[in-house]
């Protein structure tokens, strides 16, 4: 005869289902784009998007995530905190592998928990992982824009085309208020 069986799982914190504030108008806004040392395709996409954001009057600052442990990690955490402190909104990517999706979502959750409009970016193969990690990180409503997969094996010209194709839907996902964001994709 068995007694009561105890639960081996963790007690989860309450989930935040809200996407957080919309990005709103872009003119005059300081936008942080978090890139990494893994994905050149994300460098290319974010450069295309940054061009568009600047055209709408925003200022864009890139920050590259490198090693996140040891002394290098401490420096990175401080740099990232400084970046967010001086930004009105954050674009965080790229979730295109397991660990990089984990760090993308962690960095996005950090930005979102600071109250600024935040969007994470992942490729289609890692979308579900990104959503699971967002939920398990306590913010299932985190905005996520999904790019095609595979992306990193494509030539720059093709990736640039994808970035341009996705720009308007990205703005909409981010809650940007502008004429361009309201237009449907060509």
């Amino acid at each position, binding site marked *: 005869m*068995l*007694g*009561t*069986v*105890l*639960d*081996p*799982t*963790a*007690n*989860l914190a309450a989930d935040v289902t809200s996407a957080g504030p919309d990005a709103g108008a872009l003119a005059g806004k300081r936008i942080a784009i978090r890139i990494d*040392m*893994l994905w050149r395709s994300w460098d290319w996409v974010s450069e295309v998007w940054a061009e568009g954001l600047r055209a709408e009057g925003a200022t864009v600052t890139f920050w590259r995530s*490198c*090693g*996140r*442990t*040891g002394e*290098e*990690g401490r420096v990175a955490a401080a740099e990232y905190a400084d970046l967010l402190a001086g930004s009105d909104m954050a674009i965080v990517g790229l979730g295109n*592998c*397991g*660990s990089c*999706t*984990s*760090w993308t979502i*962690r960095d996005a959750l950090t930005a979102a928990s600071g109250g600024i409009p935040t969007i994470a970016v992942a490729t289609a193969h*890692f979308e579900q*992982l990104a959503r*699971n*990690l967002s939920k*398990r*990180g*306590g913010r299932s409503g985190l905005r996520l824009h999904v790019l095609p997969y595979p992306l990193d094996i494509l030539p720059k010209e093709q990736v640039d085309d994808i970035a341009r194709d996705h720009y308007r839907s990205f703005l909409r996902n981010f809650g940007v208020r502008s004429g361009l964001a309201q237009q449907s994709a060509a």
Partner: protein
Amino acid sequence: MEAGWGDGLPLIPPTEERVQDFLVKGGRYPDELVALLPPLDAECTVEKIAINAVMAGAPPESLPLLCAAIEAMADPKFDLAGLNATTGSVVPAVIVNGPQRDRLRIPYGAGCLGGVAGPAPAIGRAIRLLMRNVGGQVVGLTSQSTFGTPGRVAGIVFAEWEEKSPWAPLAERRGVAGDAVTVYGAMGTANICDVVANDAMGFLEIIAKSMAYPGANGFLTASAFSETLAVIGPVWAEVIGREFPDIQDVQQIIWDKCALPIDWFRPEYYEPIDKLGRIKPDGRVHLVPTPDDVIVMVAGGMGGLHSAMLHSWGTCLTTTRPVAAA
């Protein structure tokens, strides 16, 4: 099983009585917070450790070791968040030092990396269940591991054969004497076999050169850094130790020989590797940045012929913690 608490193997039901008994014998209070485990960043209390350890079949005497191992894994420098989600096949290897090795029957001789009957697989399984049930690492849900590894079922738990080592115990060299646990992000285990070498340099060269293969994570242009672990068999260790009683010399030689010429890589690799400053003036690329990143220990059977290598996943830095007495 239906609740998703398990790994597919039979589980021992964690009844109140069994968990209470485990806690009493393990000598810890249930409410004590040991660590926050990612990706859930969930509170891992002593009670949660006990429940999962009961399910895995681990002995109560292993509770202090389990607590210290979890604490070490949760150190931010170990990057458990990245390790849990990665496409890589990494698992935290748990290396045990000190008198507890014999009390807990953690293997350090023949078959120490797997196959010896004893509590090590159950202790490793307890850690794996904690990573699943408390941390939230589930394949296909929060873990993208492309292949996984057998070590993700029952862990990799082994000890150092300190008495056969010509050098101070691994944990002591890392600042913790006596009972200690070291966690290392291992991409599985691989054997190094040689029947020709018969001197220290011969053994060290075959170890170092075996470790340097182009697909090792240490060579990834996406890795800021990496470590590597050489588990030297006691027969080789004795020969090496006679010629190199200072472990730093051993680390230096392995580091130096564990490298590939840049022209072994296809031309498109040159730029990203060069950008990281990893091409040395002699045209070689080392697996790990410095000799300090070569971790050396002694274990294995007296059969000779063999040593073992455990490549690191990358950014998770090896972490050592003392293990409190039960």
